């Protein structure tokens, strides 16, 4: 589904070059739920923005769903974002001028979907996140957890194959974080591929696989016994 090989990303300013990612390799299979962890500034967000075609990269290769994306023009990239990818951001990123319904409608309109189908999908996805009664509310009238669930509904409405989440629970309290995670697990069970950045080890443990990034590179932790322990415990309690 998502395969990066020897990928690099350099941020150049007049004075310095920062390698946000270097010789970065990852292979996320279709239907996987991967948690990405790592210290702050290690390149997690950078990885996600490149994975989600929000940004270009400097070197290496990236195949998304079998397509080498570096040759795609801006419109083609927009189309892939719109149809195949769902984004969930730490800061929710709902559009404050639009109510819940209109927010979820945004990506569907860009897809040129008919009004009836849009409405159906919006109501379905709102139902899904348990906020069907809030369709006419504005983001400012909702709690953080509710806003994030609306953001998830927006990501879900387009039935994306790949869900990218950058610290989706970072701005939420534990209670809300759990419910958001449960939602993601549901979505995963229905077949979506999910890549979630988090620095909460407890949440990370609930993913199928953990990828650890340090200094812009993937570090293999599968050899680390501590990781196995945590992982095992949680799969145990969950099963």
């Amino acid at each position, binding site marked *: 589904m998502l395969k990066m090989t020897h990928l690099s990303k350099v941020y150049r300013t007049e004075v310095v070059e920062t390698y946000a990612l270097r010789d970065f390799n990852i292979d996320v299979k279709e239907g996987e739920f991967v948690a990405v962890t790592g210290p702050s500034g290690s390149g997690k*967000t950078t990885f*996600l*923005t490149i994975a*989600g*075609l*929000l*940004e270009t990269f400097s070197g290496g290769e990236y195949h998304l769903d079998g397509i080498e994306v570096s040759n795609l023009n*801006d*419109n083609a990239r*927009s*189309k892939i*974002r*719109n*149809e195949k990818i769902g*984004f969930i*951001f*730490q*800061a929710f*990123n709902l*559009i*404050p*001028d*639009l*109510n819940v319904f*209109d927010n979820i*409608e*945004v*990506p569907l*309109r*860009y*897809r*040129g979907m008919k009004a009836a189908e849009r409405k159906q999908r919006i109501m379905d996805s709102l139902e899904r996140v348990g906020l069907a009664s809030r369709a006419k509310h504005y983001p400012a009238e909702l709690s953080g957890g509710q806003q994030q669930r609306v953001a998830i509904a*927006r990501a879900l409405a*387009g039935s994306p194959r790949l869900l990218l989440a*950058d610290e989706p629970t970072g701005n939420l309290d534990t209670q809300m974080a759990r419910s958001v995670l449960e939602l993601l697990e549901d979505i995963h069970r229905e077949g979506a591929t999910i890549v979630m950045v988090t620095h909460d080890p407890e949440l990370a443990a609930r993913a199928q696989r953990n990828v650890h990034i340090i200094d812009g590179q993937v570090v293999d932790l599968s050899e680390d016994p501590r990781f196995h322990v945590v992982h095992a415990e949680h799969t145990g309690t969950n099963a």
Partner: protein
Amino acid sequence: MIQIKPILAAMRHHKAGTVLIALQIALTLAIVCNALFIIQQRTARLSRPSGVEESNLFVIRSDWADKSDPQHTDIQMQADLLALRQLGSVQDASPTNSFPLRGGGWDNFIKLAPDQVKMTTDAAIYFADEHSLATLGTKLIAGRNFTASEIGSQKPRDRLSSAQVIISKDLAQRLFPAGSALGKTIYVSADANKPSTVIGITDTLQAHMQSRRTPDYAYNAVLIPARLLDDGTVYLVRAKPGQLAAAMHDATKALYAQSRMRIIDRKDGVMTFAQVRQRFYKSDLGMAILMGIISVVLLAITAAGIVGLTSFWVGQRRKQIGVRRALGATRGDILNYFLTENLLIGIGGVLAGAVLAIGINLWMVTQFEMARLSLAYVAVGVVALLLLGQGAVLAPALRASHVSPVEATRSV
């Protein structure tokens, strides 16, 4: 893809700016429509014919130093005319009180019967002699010219008493719409015992003012075969082709040679007809230019307002633009968003502006005898302002379309 509903929904959260720009567009439209209409009306006046062959024609105004003896004035005028006509650079010359584009003069009510209470129309009174038509370059279209023996003289306080008159064709048409005016009797004088016979009809000949009591006054003129023995006189002089400057110089010299007991103003005592025309239409031209400047300034301010506010909005919405891009908006979609938003505000503005434009005009119709605004001006103004809006919004909208989708991930 046009997405009017969500744009309208989002606009409710930017009411102040939206209303401000819409109002600015409305006011600009209202004022510019009326300004363009005024410009059109004023410039249309500029191109109206005077009925005079204007090139090579000039005007001398001579004021008498000694005004005590009208008899002497009459002799002096005849001597002046003789001297002028003898000049090598001069083709012809005639005496008068006034002429087209002069800006004012003697007007009289014209009646068709001596006991008529209300006038039929009014007309400019031009004193003339047998040389006047040739000097003006105005053709007769019917009848005959005055003969030398018909030319008399009269004092300004005397009532007009002329057995023969020549009238302009517009006046003829106005007085006798059914048939020819030639040979008919009209009353130019208030004196019931002084009828005048129309012996000739000129081609188009403009009155000395734009309009008077009656709307059809502008081309009403009556030529009276007399020298007016006033405090001063006007001589119309036609120079030989290409000798205008020389003739103006020679004529002044010749008049002073005749008598030094006169004043010819250094500044505007001698004027080419081109100068007469320029002076006459100065306020029309000035008004047209002023309205043009006001229009351009208003349009520029409105365009600047749109650029400014949209730029502000783009800056304010960078994050949301990034989010939209992340959710699949193409650059075209973002460009479209801002163009459509501007178009919606513009449509609101021009609708209000069109109503206001017509309102302002109706008010001017009652207050200043303005003509009714043609709806074509409103239509042109509406299109122009919508285009102006789209043009003004283009640069900030393009900037918005180049906001990177990665903006969505940047923390606020």
